[in-house]
């Protein structure tokens, strides 16, 4: 029966929504941060599915943060709206970068995105009249007055947005286009796929959502700064999460994010500052030994087991 497949999703959604009523403030705060990282991990993977490696998550995250805060402080726009507009701003910048660089792709694209975070930080640092310069800006109040349940729901919305965008692309012709481009660009091109357009589209969409996550983060913590908002952790953690969980799927990065979100808290208590070393180690180990991530390896095992039992 078709609908029975959606029951796990429905249950998960219900649990996610009523979560604040089931848990304490500390747990909700961890969940809030985890959900924002989850959005970054899923959208990073979306770009990866097109065959390109973007190191720009922290850059567009930071752009969204700054845009959201500036629109709130200077233009008095409603915080929730500024989060969306912050994402739009990040998307526009990503569009320009993509148009300029995506004809060359590969390592050129990867390094430009890697440099982009530092460059955005430099730009922001050097227009203090607008952005508050190296000290950054503080918000007079955080969103919803710091109510942990409501901020959790904002983060949940952002995470859900990323998951929905990812799933929509996975269940439509977009998946076939991106996979074809990733597997063999010449074949993709020769089969009618406008490669450049798809690459730019995915990069823009994913970066826009990363900007939305940044805007949400800025309003939740009430603070932006060149070092803080463009911090490398907003690149390091999502990558480790997506790789650990399993790339090229929606649920791999989700599982990786949930796992590392929890594990990260534990590690932070055990080895302060060392937990970041572990994330780097995860990236290295997964890249070398577990290319499909934990989810992928698990799925492969299941398939093997099914094959051995003669199940189709």
């Amino acid at each position, binding site marked *: 029966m078709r609908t029975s497949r959606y029951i796990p999703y429905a249950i998960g959604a219900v649990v996610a929504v009523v979560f604040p009523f089931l848990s304490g403030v500390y747990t909700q705060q961890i969940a809030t941060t985890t959900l924002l990282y989850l959005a970054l991990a899923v959208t990073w993977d979306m770009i990866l599915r097109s065959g390109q*490696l973007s190191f720009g998550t922290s850059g567009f995250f930071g752009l969204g943060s700054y845009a959201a805060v500036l629109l709130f402080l200077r233009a008095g726009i409603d915080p929730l709206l500024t989060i969306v507009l912050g994402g739009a701003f990040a998307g526009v910048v990503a569009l320009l970068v993509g148009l300029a660089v995506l*004809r060359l792709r590969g390592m050129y694209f990867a390094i*430009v995105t890697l440099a982009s975070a*530092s*460059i955005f930080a430099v*730009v922001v640092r050097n227009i203090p009249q607008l952005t508050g310069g190296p000290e950054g800006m503080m918000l007079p109040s955080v969103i919803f007055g710091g109510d942990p349940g409501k901020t959790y729901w904002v983060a949940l919305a952002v995470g859900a947005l990323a998951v929905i965008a990812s799933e929509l692309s996975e269940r439509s012709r977009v998946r076939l286009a991106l996979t074809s481009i990733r597997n063999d660009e010449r074949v993709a091109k020769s089969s009618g796929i406008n490669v450049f357009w798809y690459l730019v589209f995915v990069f823009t969409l994913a970066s826009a959502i990363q900007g939305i996550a940044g805007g949400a983060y800025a309003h939740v913590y009430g603070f932006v700064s060149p070092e803080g908002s463009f911090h490398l952790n907003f690149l390091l953690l999502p990558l480790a999460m997506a790789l650990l969980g399993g790339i090229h799927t929606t649920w791999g990065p989700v599982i990786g994010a949930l796992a590392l979100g929890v594990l990260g808290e534990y590690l932070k208590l055990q080895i302060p500052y060392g937990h*970041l*070393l572990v994330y780097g180690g995860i*990236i290295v180990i997964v*890249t070398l030994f577990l290319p499909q991530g934990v989810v992928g390896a698990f799925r492969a095992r299941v398939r093997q087991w099914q094959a051995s039992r003669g199940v189709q």
Partner: protein
Amino acid sequence: MTLLRTAAQKRSALVLVSLAILVLVAVWKPYALIEGAQRGGLYALIALPMALILGIVGIINLAHGEFMMLGAYFAYWMFRGAGMDPLVAMIPAIVVFGLLGVVTYTLTIRRALKAPELNQLLLTFGLAMMAAQFANLMWTSQPFKPSLMYVYSSMRLGRLSFGTYAFVYDAAAIVLLVGLLLFLRKTRLGQAALAVGQNPRGAKLVGIDVNRTYLVIFTISIALVGAIGAMFLTRHSVFPSVGSPYTMKSFCLIAMAGIGNLTGIVWGGFALGVAEALVMSFRGYGGWADVVFFAVLVAVIMVRSFRIRRQTA
């Protein structure tokens, strides 16, 4: 311009234009020229070992700057622990980082060679993160710098008075360039490396041990960049994230010069250094200097992709 048809004509035009700009800058902003030359020397020096790996092994070492950072820390602790001058520490650095290069290659890089380019990028990125976080964990983010008297040497030239020590980077860059060119063209190992860089399969067919070549080149590169880190420390503080801008600027130089063009990296480093120094010489715009390399990188990519577009659809 249909006047510039042949490559030789284009090159002469480029040289003339560069000389003109050089003279202009020397007259207008002499300090920028001097400072730029010194910065450029450092950029070229750091970029050369990265170009070696990219050209021959075919991978970008995103952890390049981090190895330099570790080299600087090594020199610092040799200074604190044994009173060794960082320039002297370059020698043990070569040994230590040579070993580090061997270990890194054997444990990680070697396995990723057959993997797609993305995996290699991710791997070296992970290594870079590990190195930076390791440094942060061990030595915190506080900058360290030995105080050395000789870095303050200066001289007068007419009305100009400027520091002279930093020209050591230019000298080192030139020495390294010449050394690498001689190595690649005159020694058997170097020639084998060039062959592998151009055509690994063909090289294997003529009996060159490709894997050993990769190992040697990678090791040389890491050893060099570790020693360069020691040299770096004489004039700059070291802290965990000091290396990453240099990784990106090195790639920018390699992209500008073209993979395999080592001499071009030295010229490009000089040009980039002067451009940055020029930006810094304008009061109030100093902070924008770091944007220069990014603008150059994007420009180079756009020019190259335009050229490719004219060939293919």
